[in-house]
């Protein structure tokens, strides 16, 4: 453990890139130590004075962030090699854990880089389309009370409903890369949520068709990395296992019905 009283600077080593076509490069920065900072607030400080550790004035670092309280999912990046939300990465804890050496920031590697730490995660939203991640209501108008839902089912679904589409699980998944068509742990878990809902269940087969198709649930290699990195602590492996059972039952039923 490092004694924070002895720390004079918060040091960062940041992997940068000017645009999607340019090569990456590294730059070091440091700001005077202050307690209770996080990676977003440190990046904001650098933005006010974009000078590298060796005194060179450079363009400020570009990154994505919005809510600063770990509910919007915007600020995912690799922090000392771990995919997580930058706003919730407290510098005091990082220094205590890793010591006084520079904290290393990189963009997620499974998505195209836009600039510096900012990546394009639109593929995740496209994958939600593939698994029909919505309840197919007749319309949004008022027609009276919705279906009842047992408290125990709500608790399972509510956990899944926290998924911010932040991309940490895909970054950690050994079976997902920028070229693979694996829908990913988050999308599989979403199917469980919609298939639990009394109206959503009516389209359960459509979603299961997507899960048993190419790039579906069979691409999961059960490494369990997704669950370990999920910032919302969603028990992704349990939800994938539950969907595996649903998918198997569905395949067998289809086979017998032929």
């Amino acid at each position, binding site marked *: 453990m490092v004694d924070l009283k002895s720390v004079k600077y918060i040091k960062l080593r940041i992997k940068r890139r000017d645009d999607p076509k340019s090569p990456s490069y590294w730059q070091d920065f440091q700001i005077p130590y202050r307690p209770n900072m996080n990676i977003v607030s440190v990046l904001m400080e650098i933005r006010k004075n974009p000078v590298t550790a060796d005194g060179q004035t450079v363009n400020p670092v570009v990154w994505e962030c919005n809510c600063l*309280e770990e509910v919007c999912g915007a600020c995912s990046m690799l922090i000392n090699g771990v995919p997580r939300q930058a706003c919730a990465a407290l510098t005091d804890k990082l220094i205590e854990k890793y010591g006084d050496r520079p904290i290393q920031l990189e963009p997620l590697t499974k998505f195209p880089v836009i600039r510096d730490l900012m990546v394009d995660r639109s593929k995740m939203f496209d994958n939600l389309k593939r698994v029909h991640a*919505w309840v197919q209501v007749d319309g949004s108008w008022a027609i009276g009370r919705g279906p009842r839902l047992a408290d125990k089912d709500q608790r399972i679904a509510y956990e899944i409903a926290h998924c911010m589409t932040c991309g940490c699980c895909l970054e950690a998944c050994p079976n997902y890369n920028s070229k693979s068509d694996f829908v990913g742990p988050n999308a599989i878990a979403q199917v469980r949520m*919609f298939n639990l809902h009394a109206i959503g269940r009516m389209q359960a087969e459509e979603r299961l068709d997507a899960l048993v198709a190419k790039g579906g649930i069979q691409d999961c290699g059960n490494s369990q990395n997704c669950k370990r990195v999920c910032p919302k602590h969603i028990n992704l492996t349990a939800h994938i296992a539950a969907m595996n059972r649903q998918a198997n039952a569905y395949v067998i039923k289809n086979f017998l019905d032929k």
Partner: protein
Amino acid sequence: MEKTKVVVVGGGLAGLMSTLKITEKNIPVDLISLVPVKRSHSVCAQGGVNAALDTKGQHDSVEQHFYDTVYGGDFLANQTPVKGMCDNAPGLIYAMDRMGVMFTRTSEGLIDLRRFGGVKNNRTAFAGATTGQQLLYTLDEQVRRQEVLGMVNKYENWEMIDLLIDDNGVCKGVVAQDLATMEIRAFVADAVVIATGGAGMIYGRSTNSIINTGAAAAILYKHGVPFANGEFVQIHPTAMLGDDKLRLMSESARGDGARIWTYKDGKPWYFLEERYPSYGNLVPRDIAAREIYDVCVNMGLGIDGKNQVYLDLSHLPADYLNKRLKGILDIYQTFYGDDPRKVPMKIFPAVHYFMGGIHVDWEHQTNIPGLFAAGECDYMYHGANRLGANSLLSAMYSGTVAGPAVVKYIGGLQAAAAETIGNIADLTVKKQQAEHDKLTKMTGKENPYKLHDEMSEIMYRNATIVRVNKDLEETDVKLQEFQERWNDINITDFGGYSNQTIMYVRELRGMMDLARVIVGGALRRNESRGSHYKPEFPKRDDANFLKTTLATYKDGDPEFSWEDVDIQWIKPVERKY
């Protein structure tokens, strides 16, 4: 009309609901959003959404919801639209339930209801303490389905930077910029809905997300749309202290039993319970915020001598807390370290919500035909103080009004905008391209982020809980200096791709315009009403100020006028809790 199209700007609850209502009528929508819509600020709303579902045997009613909202807003809200909102709230919540919102349930599977501030009944439907997130995701899913059906084209990571207004003063679309490639282009449309949220970033640190700059509202203001009731900014009583953000600790904590206290004479002092025996910890936000301020600043009784008091739910069972409030307990523990299940949280009031906003008629149309506004960026439903859990409601409800109003408006048009726009689109794009090119070459002395810090500091000091005319005058002078200094900004980022500083500098100019609207409105309102409190004028003054403030942009300055409030349903009475 063949090529009918609508542009919706903003992908939070109001924008998504408007989009859904318009596409359900087979009119395609271009949805423009600063961030992927799923990351919009609605995601931060915690405690719940009000609707008189009356499932708790309390004889709750839409009439009581209407009364509480008007009374809680200190009679400044136009009553007819508020009545519409409360009447329609139960149907809206049930529709959201059908779409799959994972509301917290009772033992027989109904939507559970908790109590909120300024209310005696359980009227707040909730999904733990992440209700905004759950509602937003559900509308995001529904709009994604419309996207698959070919009815919605999303332009995420795009910023609206101007309106297309034709020679007759009719809105025919917007100009927006791709925040990655920096491309500027026109989006021609038959109608435009602005649903861009509040403007907490004017104050720097607040409970808001960093996209909540009010820049879009400022663009409308500069085009001659009045900004209404700008001086009414809600200060939420319970937020965490922080360097970068003042993270909200939901009112639902108190709804579920949390108590606010500090030490007096060495003993815990539950000052809200003592001063307000009837409502206790659930007095409305303006009152709770003023009391906490009074105890800390005037009486010097803050915890550890600092401006902070305890928000305490450590007496409640952990199981109960985890089911209902886990979302905020996790935030507190992540960012502060202490476990609020075991030790009281330290909190202080923070800027939270804009009751004021873009002036619209009761169908959410502005004074520019074809231009609509919905959600927190409008001024419609909350008067001088918003009751907790009415914002998720007004965000969604205003979308259910604006959407159909857009459809009706388009039904009355003779020709599609695409056919009649002429060269307005090209001219406006050229103008904005020139503006943008000028920004890229700003090499003055001012760092934009530091200039913003200076502005927020003085705004926090003089335009929040306690307002004094002398300070407001001084602030307005300062704001004009900041506007001058803006011209001497150094852009600091000279990259040509995904340049966030250019976008920020442009937004900063809008924030300065709106800051002057806030301060000017506050200066001229010599009374105390809801969130607007002046010790020099401690009483509400209906004879002079039962009026909506309108700020209209004129030659660089706000010009103020006042409009009567619709009070046809409930006669104004003194507000006491």
